[in-house]
Structure formats: structure tokens, C-alpha cells
């Protein structure tokens, strides 16, 4: 039996996939989460950052956070609202739009992805990082990559070798397996155009605007600093809600 489950992760992540055994207690859990979260719907607006611009110092500096959030992210939202204004897509959630992104104009792909990815990214960061994942996520990382160190190596490599602008991702595929990938510009693994599709649980922005004021050409230093501010409890929550 195949039943479509709709899951909302955080304020953002939403994916439709198929499972064989559907448990009603899971369904209730999903629904509770669904109604407690804010869906991303038109007209879009900036989410709460959840911490101060200087909270991630010295790993991510205050000026970068302020410009990244209040200028770059805000511009994606303005452009997305303009691109959707007066279209049928006003009635859809951003998730629905992104899942079928190949059917939309490039401005929707660029700015819809920009809004979605940044909204997710801010939640991936915290001044109080635990340093490493725990529980089911830690086990899943070990079984998918061999060890946490090997996972980090693969993720680092994806982040460092993405040529030009883009993102690095840790996602869960439709079989529940974790994988690392990178996407160009503002694409993401939920888009129907993605080479490797899945639901992201962790992401890193490697556009130069994400690190240039502090790290300039040294993207590897930024990627390495990122591990000091990863919000592992958020990543764990997303993973556990998904499986």
C-alpha cells in the first residue's frame, strides 16, 4: 500500500514520499508538527533570525550576518513576491512550487530557492553548538559515511568544490538514507531539477556573500568554522521527524 505522507519540518522542509507501513501515531505526530509550524506562503516575508547578528562571532561575523539576512535574503523575498504576483502560484506553498520548479520561470527558481534555502540556513546555525550529532542521527551518519569525521570530510569537499555560487547539503533520500550533495546557485535537493533528490536536514551557503567579508578567498576556512556553529539539535530534530 502506498500512501502519500506530507511532512513539515521546521518552518520549512516539506516533502512528499511514499512508505509501505503507515502508523497512525506517526500521522498524529506529523499533524501536530504541521499545525505548530509556519508554512511559507505568499506573500513571503523575512522569518525570525532567532539570534542576534553577532551571536555567531567569531565564526560568522556580525556584518556578514546583517547583510546576508537583511539585504540578500530580503531581496530574494521581494523578487519572489514580484515574480508570483497575480499568478496562480500565489495560492501554493513554497514547497509545492519548489517541488515542481521546472514548470516556473527562472525568477521563481532563483528567488524561491533563495528564500527557501536561506530560511532553512538560519536555523542550521546556533551560538550553542553541541559540536557533534547525537542519537539516531549520529547512528545514521555512522552507517551512511563510516564515521562523523568521514561525513564531515565529504560535506567539506562538496562545499569547497562547488564552483561558483551554491550550497552544500546533507539530505535524506526516499529510502531514508543520508547523502551529501551540492547544488548551483539557489537550487536545492527538493527541486525536481536536482541531480540527487531528497529532503535536506543540514545545509551550508557557499555563495561568496556568505563569507567574503571575513574569509575572502579562503572558503575552506569558512567551511571549517561552520562546524563550530552547527545547530545539531535542529538537524537531529529534522532527521528524526523525517524517518
Amino acid at each position, binding site marked *: 500500500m502506498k500512501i502519500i505522507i506530507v511532512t513539515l519540518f521546521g518552518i520549512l522542509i516539506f516533502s512528499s514520499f511514499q512508505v509501505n507501513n503507515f502508523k497512525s501515531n506517526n500521522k498524529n505526530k506529523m499533524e501536530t508538527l504541521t499545525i505548530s509550524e509556519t508554512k511559507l506562503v505568499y506573500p513571503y516575508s523575512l522569518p525570525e533570525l532567532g539570534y542576534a547578528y553577532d551571536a555567531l562571532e567569531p565564526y560568522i561575523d556580525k556584518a556578514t550576518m546583517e*547583510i546576508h539576512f537583511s*539585504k*540578500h535574503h530580503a*531581496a530574494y523575498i521581494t523578487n519572489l513576491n514580484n515574480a508570483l504576483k497575480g499568478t496562480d502560484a500565489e495560492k501554493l506553498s513554497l514547497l509545492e512550487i519548489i517541488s515542481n520548479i521546472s514548470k516556473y520561470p*527562472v525568477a521563481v527558481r*532563483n528567488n524561491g530557492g533563495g528564500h527557501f534555502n536561506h530560511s532553512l540556513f538560519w536555523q542550521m546555525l546556533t551560538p550553542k553548538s553541541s559540536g557533534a550529532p547525537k542519537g539516531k542521527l549520529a547512528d545514521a551518519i555512522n552507517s551512511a559515511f563510516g564515521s562523523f569525521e568521514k561525513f564531515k570530510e565529504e560535506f567539506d569537499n562538496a562545499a569547497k568544490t562547488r*564552483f*561558483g*555560487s*551554491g550550497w552544500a547539503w546533507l539530505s535524506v533520500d526516499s529510502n531514508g538514507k543520508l547523502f551529501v550533495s551540492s547544488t*548551483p*546557485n*539557489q537550487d536545492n535537493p527538493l527541486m525536481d531539477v536536482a541531480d540527487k533528490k531528497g529532503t535536506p536536514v543540514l545545509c551550508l551557503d557557499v*555563495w*561568496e*556573500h556568505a563569507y*567574503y*567579508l571575513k574569509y*575572502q*578567498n579562503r572558503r575552506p576556512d569558512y567551511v571549517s568554522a561552520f562546524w563550530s556553529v552547527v545547530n545539531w539539535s535542529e538537524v537531529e530534530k529534522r532527521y528524526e521527524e523525517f524517518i
Partner: protein
Amino acid sequence: MIHQLPALKFDLDALAPVISKQTLEFHYGKHHQAYVNNLNNLIKETKFENSTLETIVKEADGGIFNNAAQIWNHTFYFEAFSKNGGGEPSGKIAALIADNFGSFADFKEKFAKAAVTQFGSGWAWLVVKADGKLDIIQTSNAACPIKDGLKPLLTCDVWEHAYYLDYQNRRPDYVEAFWKIVDWKVVENRL
């Protein structure tokens, strides 16, 4: 052959405040240099080991293309700048711009729009097409018009590293300032 970072014909502080010394130190001294270093490493023991840069740009793909094209693009970008640049073109290039775009102001507007709207990393270009007409195009990441048989005359780097230290998210301000350092004699000589 070993590829080299070409010398700049101006001092690193010569283009300020349009492009700061700090930006040039990174852009030329780190990014441009890194593309040179990467290419020299990547072509070792490949069929491109003894090729000219232009041949590699035209024939390679993947990482070898990216690094070769970025060397070519940056050399071409920096070459067109001068401390005494700016103003309006004269002579043959001025006539061609007027013929193809209506006026210099119309050309600037169209070129600026290409530079500002290129999404993500890339370049805006003024090129001569096979039929001799001028055109304005955008390329993403390392893509270089000589690979498509076009003859570039002028380019603006819109990778964020080209302007982020000086202008942050304000790419339109960078593109507007860019006109103040364009050496139109260099552009005309490329015809």
C-alpha cells in the same frame, strides 16, 4: 607550458575608489593567481600540458576549463582598466556602439542590466558576433565567449568576490562605478 599570472599595468591602489586596493590584492593576488596555480596542476600529464591558454579554453571542459577560462577572463577584465579611464569612447568603437545600440547611454544601460541581472557568479560581456554586429551577453561561472566563436571587447566580473569588500550586496553601485575605469582605447584596440 607553465601558465603565468600576467602583470597588471597599474598599481594595486590605482583604481580606488572604484575598486579598492584590498579588493585587487585578493582578486588579482589570490583568485587570479589560484586559477593559474590550479590550471598548472590540473594539466600535468594531460593532453593540454603544452597547449596555449586559448586552446585550453576552447577545447577543455570540467575543472581544466574552469581554471583556464577564469585566467583568460580575469586577464581580459583587468587589462581594460586604467587610472585615467572613463568618459566616452571615440573613433571606430564609438561609431559601432552608436550603430548597434542607438547611443552610448543606451549601450551602458543594456550592459549594466546584463551585469546586474546575471544570477549567481558570472560575467557580462560586450562581444562582436560572426556577422560583425555587437552584442551584450551574460555568462555564468567561468563561461567564456571565445569558446562560442565570439570576439569579446569588454567584460565586467560579477562574481561577488569582484565587489563584495567594496560594495557588499550593492552590485548595481559597482557596475555604475565600473564605467569610471574603463579604458576605451584598450577596447577599441580589441576590434
